[in-house]
Each structure stands twice: as C-alpha cells, then as structure tokens.
C-alpha cells in the first residue's frame, strides 16, 4: 500500500488548566495521502486548530505520534525540525492578524526564504517574490504595499504566498476563508485548489463551514470535543452520515428553500466541558438517541463500510 504523506497515531494534546486537564485533542488517528485534502470540521473549541498546530509541531503533542513520510516528527530535534519546516506550512484564519503590519508585502513573502536561507542572492529573492505574487494572483504593483492598505482577499493571498514560499508538501489551512466574505471565499478556495493541482500539495483543511469543506476535500473528519467521531470520503459523508452529530451538522447547512425549513435537526444542550471529560461518548449529553450504555463505554472508530469510520455505541 502507498505510504501516507502524513499520519497521526493516537495523537493527544492536553492543556493543564486551573480546573483540571483540558483534552483539546484526544486520541486522533488519520492518514492523509499525497495530493489529497482532509477536511476537518467541528464546532468552535472542538480542538481543530490545536490539532492543526500539533501536526506541524507548532505545539508539542502530549502523547502519540505524527508521522511525516513515515518518520515520527515528535522525536525530531531542533535542527531536524528546522529542515522539516520547509515541508509543512500553515495558512491562518484571520488575514488581518497573520500579517505583520510593519512589513511590506515583499518583506512578508521573502521572510521565510530569508529565515531558511533558501535564497540568499538579493536579485533571485526579488524574482522569487514576484513569481509567488503572480502565482497567487497579486498584482505586481502591490509589492511595496502594507497589509492594512489591502482588502481581506488580497491579504489572504499574501498568506498563501508566504506559505508557498518554501515549496512545502503539506499545508495546514486553519479556516483560511471563514474571515472573508462569500464572493472572496470562492476566489481563495479556487486558488487553493488550483495550487494543489499545480504543485501536488496536500492540505489539511480546518473549517466549521460544511459547504466549503465539501467543495475542497477528498476526505472529511468530523471532530467533537477533541475526538474524531466520524471519518469518510467527502461524498460518502454527505450522502450517508451515520453519527448523530454529523447528521445534526449536515442538517444545519442552510438550504435556500422555504419548504425544507422545518427539517432541521437542532441540537439542544450545552457542549460538555473538555476539562477532564468522563469516559464514554462525549456527545451523549446532546444526542437525540442517547442510551444508558453511551456513558462509561470505551468508544473507538469502527469501519462500517469501506473507508467510512464512525465512533458510536450503535456500531460497536
């Protein structure tokens, strides 16, 4: 079998807080193959962003492994890590906060190249910056502009150009379009898909917007309170959702029709606290089909049909 580009094994990230241990990412396992996109969806605070940061080791994992091309990067030392950073980059959610307001467009895009000493020749560096700007569709005349002078879409293009500067293989996209308005979202998404085709990039696409994720993903993982509750190829997940949380999420996609208004499956109740969660299904408190056996049992992802995994008592 082909080796996945990046793979997590029992990945855990806990934060110590005053009230206990916060389980931000709890036992997450998945694989992403070269050229594919894994969409990660879930509501705010379910650990999607933390997962993305642990994957490229901006945060260290509490337990578990991240294998990049088969090697566990959690064991890498500082120097190995610096080499590896060229292979994995990140695009941020807020294009206003992710660009240094004191640096011009060219300085921002050139920074990774300077830091990693990939290009030291000034003229080549300049050429590379113009090249990247062209790749992401930024007009050359903006080369000396400052981020605050540009609109959200252009800013996000700068973010994409910076991530591409080092020719990475894997990019974590942390809600790259949720801060943009809808017409710009489509532009950026198309740009990212074009780039994926052009450079054979592999994405982990974090979002809470299901219509976006359907558009771009090959596979989708649904997260709830730090755990992956369902994972399936994109079409399969939309056609045949199994986990009650996935069903609720899908039914929350607005349908532009008057007839289907009342078909929404609205969840009641609060999200359980991610601090020291009890064993068993973490969704049980809000699940419409919760049964007594949902609490206290040990849940694992189970393959119910080819490549469709779900973690629910019903299928244990």
């Amino acid at each position, binding site marked *: 079998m082909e080796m996945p580009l990046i793979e997590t094994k029992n990945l855990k990230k806990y934060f110590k807080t005053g009230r206990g241990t916060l389980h931000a990412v709890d036992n997450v396992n998945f694989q992403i193959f070269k050229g594919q996109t894994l969409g990660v969806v879930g509501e705010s605070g379910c650990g999607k962003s933390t997962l993305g*940061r642990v994957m*490229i080791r*901006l945060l260290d994992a509490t337990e578990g492994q991240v294998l990049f091309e088969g090697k566990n990067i959690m064991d890498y030392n500082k120097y190995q*890590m*610096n080499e590896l*950073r*060229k292979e*994995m*980059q*990140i695009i*941020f*959610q*807020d294009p206003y*906060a*992710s*660009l*240094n*307001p*004191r*640096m*011009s467009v*060219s300085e921002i895009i050139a*920074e*990774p190249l300077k*830091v*990693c000493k990939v290009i030291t020749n000034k003229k080549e560096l*300049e*050429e590379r910056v*113009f*090249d990247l700007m*062209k*790749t992401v*569709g930024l007009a*050359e*005349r903006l*080369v*000396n502009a*400052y981020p*605050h002078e540009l609109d959200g879409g252009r800013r996000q293009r700068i*973010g994409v150009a*910076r991530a591409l*500067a*080092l020719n990475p293989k894997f990019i974590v996209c942390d809600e790259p379009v949720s801060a943009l308005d809808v017409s710009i979202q489509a*532009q950026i998404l*198309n*740009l990212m898909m*074009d*780039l994926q085709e*052009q450079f054979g990039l592999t994405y982990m696409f974090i979002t809470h917007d299901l219509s976006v994720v359907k558009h771009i993903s090959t596979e989708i993982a649904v997260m709830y309170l730090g755990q992956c509750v369902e994972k399936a190829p994109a079409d399969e997940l939309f056609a045949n959702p199994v986990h009650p949380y996935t069903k609720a999420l899908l039914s929350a996609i607005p349908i532009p029709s008057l007839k289907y208004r009342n078909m929404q499956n609205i969840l009641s109740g609060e999200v359980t606290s991610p601090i020291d969660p009890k064993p068993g299904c973490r969704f049980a408190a809000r699940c419409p089909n919760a049964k007594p056996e949902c609490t206290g049992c040990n849940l694992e992802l189970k393959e119910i049909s080819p490549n469709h995994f779900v973690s629910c008592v019903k299928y244990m």
Partner: protein
Amino acid sequence: MSVGTGTQAAAAPMQKYKKRSQIAQIWGRFKKNKMAMGGLILFGIMLIVAITAPLFIDYEVDVIQQTISERFQSPSAAHWFGTDQFGRDIFSRVFWGARISMFVGVVVVVISLIIGSILGAASGFFGGWLDNVIMRFMDILLAIPGTMLAITIVAALGGGIQNLLLALSIEQIPKMTRIVRSSVLTLKTQDYIEAARACGTTNARIIYRHILPNAIGPILVQASLTVARTIISVASMSFIGLGINPPEPEWGAMLSEAKAQLMNYPYLVVAPGLAIILTVTSLTLIGDGLRDALDPKMKN
C-alpha cells in the same frame, strides 16, 4: 482569478515600484498634526539652545559670577529676564539650565529605555518564573512613591548629578518595563508570530523583526512622556535641595531661590517657571502626536 493569469515578463525589476518606508509614512502623519508639530518645533528650539548655549553664554561670567551691584534688576534691554539676588543674569541662567534639564531627561530615558526594554521583553516573551521574578521586583519598586524613592536614594548616596541620574532612572525603569512587557504580551500571541515560528524563525529574530517594530509605538510615546516627567522630577528635587547643587543654574533650584523674594520681585519665577512649562508641554504634545502617527492602521 486563477493561477498564471500574468502574461507580463516573469519578474519586473523592483525599482519600478517605489519603496515607501514606514518612517516616511509616520512622518507624513505626524506633520499633519499641528499641535504635535508645534511641540516638536518648540522642543527643537529648546534642544538647539541647550546644545549651543556655550557658544554665546560664558558659564563663568554670565551664569555663576555674582555681581552684587546689579542685584534684583527688573527685565531690561541688558538683562531680558532681569537679575537675581546675586546679580546674575536670569536669561543666561535659564538657557544654561536647559542643558542640565535636557541632559538629565535624555540620559534617564536612555538608561530606563535600555534596561526596561530588556527586562520587559524578556519577561513578556519568555514568561514563567523569569516573568514572575522580574515583575515582582518591579512591583516592589512601583509600590514606593516615585519621589520618595528618589529622595531616599539621593539622601542615602548624597546629592550631585550622578546620584540624581541613578535615582530618577530607578524610578522610571519599572514603568518602562511594564509598558514593554504588556506590548510584548499582546504581540506574541499574534498569528504572524506563529507564522514566523512555522518556518523556524529563531526567538532573537522574532523579537527584533516582528515584536520590537510593533512595540515601538507605545515605547516611544512612553519615552517622550518620561523625558517630560523626569524634567519635572529634576526640578522638584532641586527645589527641595536634593538635586543639582548651587550655583549650577537648574530651573527648580532657581525657583527655590526665588521663592523667598516672591512678594518683592515676582519676575524672578517667570523665566524658570515658563521654561519648565514649555519644555514639558512640548514633550507631551510630541508624545500625543507620536501615539497617533505610529499606528499603522491610521489613514494618511
């Protein structure tokens, strides 16, 4: 827009597009603020006077030589601001006094800026026990009223300009440290810092390339206000006799000497008093103007 829309030549020369430095933009915004420009011009004049005073004022003859026959003369063509109880020309003394006030103000700011920035940046950036140790120590210093602290230090070590510099710097360091620390704390959680980490940027480069340029705004504003505050502190210390020793013409000391004659010769306090007010006001105006001009999000 899709990839590869450009049909132009691969890489246009950089020179085609004018590079606009942020300093030029900041200056452009500062220039538009009339109050701030007024402050800058006033302070500029004061600074030039302070630097060039020795060219047209003879310290031995004009500033400290006592001429009893000429005491308590009202302002006239010969003595623009009059003469004091020892017959010294107040005009020369006030102008020479600018040298002392400016010198102390600038030196104290430089010392507190350097030490405060290092302590504040380390404390904010690295956090943890280092932050705790540094900031608790600063809290101790801040808990003592500034003037009290300065008086205590000067009283313990004796008067003179060196001890005064030391005392006033110790008073200002905790304030500077707090300002730098709080800016660093807000900046270090920004996404662009994380983006820098994602390509393996070292801590040192993150601090000087990403954090300091963004923290410079509040730091500069604080610095200009600190000069103003220090000039007042020097004057107050000298006023109560713990600052600059006579016969050096310090503004506060001049006020102190004049207060005994205030009922008979009120013009004695006008010149040194005005000098203090104008310098401090000009610095405050500059500080306010800088605060607005340094925000990169401000429209031109």
